[in-house]
């Protein structure tokens, strides 16, 4: 198991490298002039070709790409100094250096660090909520398959999940904060958990509920479908024929098998969940990485864009690893083969 983990972590690092390389190449050879945005910004939109050339030179865009990529990677491990133009300030970017934001002139990694808790709070909180709601509801529906309650549940959840998520979240926000004006939780936003856990939770609550309800409708369907299938398996019939109580049959024999596909979907889905946090952060006014990356895209803030993309990749790789570990815990055949 340990050797397997090491192997997976190593291959994850390789993948991260490849991702960083492809993002780098995309910007380098992409259609837009990479130095243009910083030139515009620094010269208050009076960027002349000469001035642009100065920026290109100091930012290293005149060097071969592999040399610059080397500098970037070197910076990740040892840190580096960054200058935007000949006579501007030298920014000291400490390792791990992902660059300095064109816009805010902040160290990108530092900013990511301060924003990460907000994003993880949204994503993990939402995911926890929808798994904790979705799976039990799905299992309960599967047990009562074909009854009126089951049918009503399935169709109402189908209706909810056919609404686009951003619309759903926006409506939830409007309804709770504008229509009902529910106190406390209407004040959404991220407040560090270390400062005031209560405030943290109340600020997040609405975002969680929106994500949770929306995800729950999907995970209810997944786990219901998976459970229905498992309940028709031969080994469930065997468990019943042994005289086991219904509880044991459903939870010990059924649920464990039914979770396998759900976990798989969750692993794939976690990426989408992160994409979803962009809307969530936007609507609920949470200063997280999604919002940050979105603004960076608008502002052509290249270091930030590439850092958020790397962050996304890292999260995907980690969640895949976790899913595989859970998988092998659930299914001994995976462990042993």
């Amino acid at each position: 198991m340990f050797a397997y983990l090491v192997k997976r972590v190593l291959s994850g690092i390789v993948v991260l490298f490849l991702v960083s390389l492809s993002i780098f190449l995309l910007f380098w050879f992409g259609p837009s002039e990479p130095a243009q945005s910083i030139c515009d910004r620094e010269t208050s939109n009076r960027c002349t070709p000469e001035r642009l050339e100065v920026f290109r030179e100091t930012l290293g865009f005149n060097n071969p790409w592999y040399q610059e990529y080397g500098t970037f990677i070197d910076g990740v491990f040892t840190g580096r100094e960054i200058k935007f133009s000949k006579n501007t300030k030298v920014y000291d970017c400490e390792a791990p250096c992902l660059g300095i934001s064109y816009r805010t002139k902040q160290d990108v990694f530092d900013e990511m660090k301060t924003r990460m808790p907000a994003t993880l709070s949204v994503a993990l909180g939402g995911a926890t909520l929808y798994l904790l709601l979705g799976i039990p509801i799905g299992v309960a529906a599967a047990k009562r398959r074909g009854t009126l309650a089951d049918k009503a549940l399935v169709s109402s959840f189908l209706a909810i999940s056919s609404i686009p998520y951003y619309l759903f979240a926006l409506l939830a926000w409007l309804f709770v904060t504008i229509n009902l004006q529910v106190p406390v939780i209407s004040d959404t936003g991220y407040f560090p958990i270390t400062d005031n856990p209560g405030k943290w939770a109340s600020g997040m609550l609405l975002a969680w509920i929106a994500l949770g309800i929306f995800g729950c409708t999907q995970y209810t369907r997944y786990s219901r479908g998976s459970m229905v299938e498992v309940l028709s398996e031969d080994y469930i019939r065997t468990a019943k024929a042994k005289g086991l109580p219904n509880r044991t049959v459903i939870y010990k024999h059924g649920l464990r098998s039914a979770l396998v596909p759900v976990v798989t979907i969750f692993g794939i889905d976690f990426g989408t969940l992160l994409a979803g946090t962009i809307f969530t952060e936007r609507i609920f006014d949470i200063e997280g990485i999604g919002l940050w990356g979105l603004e960076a895209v608008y502002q052509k803030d290249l270091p930030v864009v590439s850092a958020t993309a790397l962050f996304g990749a890292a999260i995907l790789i980690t969640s895949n690893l976790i899913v595989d570990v859970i998988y092998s815990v659930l299914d001994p055949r995976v462990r042993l083969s």
Partner: protein
Amino acid sequence: MDDPLLVVEDLTVQFPTEDGVVTAVSNLSYQVELGKTLGIVGESGSGKSVSSMAVLGLHDARSARITGSIRVRGTEVVGMSEAKLRKLRGNEIAMIFQDALAALHPFYRVGGQLAEAYRVHHPSASKRDARRKAIEMLDRVGIPKPDRRVDDFPHQFSGGMRQRAMIAMGLINDPSLLIADEPTTALDVTVQAQILDLLQDLQREFNSAVIIITHDLGVIAEMADDVLVMYAGRAVEYGPCKEIMVHPEMPYTWGLLSSVPDVTSDTSARMIPIPGNPPSLLSPPTGCAFHPRCVHRDKVPGDLCSTTLPELIPGGRGPQHLKRCHLSNSDAIYEAEVLPEIAPDLVEEP
């Protein structure tokens, strides 16, 4: 103790579906005594599994309509509460299934699954007792090094070993009735022979009653004391095994006997198939359900076969041997027309 262990009377199992009501079993009656083996044969979909699952009350009350009576040691099973049924299942009546790989849970160790079956009916037994019992049963069914194999997962067992483990699980609580639903269909002949031997030995040892379900008449002939032939959810012939194998009275049984070659039959002859296809259970044929495929129905006067369902009653061969067919002289027809085709060497020279 005069009552047989299991008495099934007038059992009907129906499944309402979107296309209509599927009558999987109709008015089925049979009984099994301790120490005896009943063989149930019939083609796919004839209701063999459905009827025996009803004995354990395994059908979902919401999707199956069950009428009639199933009595185990005189106690009615139809309509029994789940709690009481659970006490019966795996304890008084055990069932083993065809595909042992699918029937064992892939995520749990074989020993754990056996121990679980033991502990649910022996709540006072400790985990160690249950494990010891599991090892003992694995040993009993001939699994080598049971103390080590007890911790294997099902996929680490071979096909024959899995079926042995299923049997061990079925017998762990010393049931008085064991229902084996096609226990050897997925296995090779040599392994099938091992498993059948094992079943016979264990039955002798535990003196339990056995119902063996199969579509292989050879297996029935070797194992069973009584035979029940099913067609389209009904019993069409029922009686002592020897009697039915030597003097079958119902054309469907003749078809079954003649449509499979054996290792001594004449190879220059063609095989004699049962024409047509198995009937639909949604709208079974009127009258005798076998009539669209029956080559002997012209020997019955009028259109009796296609209009009137024959009763399951004794033919001409004593009260034990029941058949569901309008033919009155089936013995003679069998001797004259069927036997020469399937076993010319058994036909006496005139």
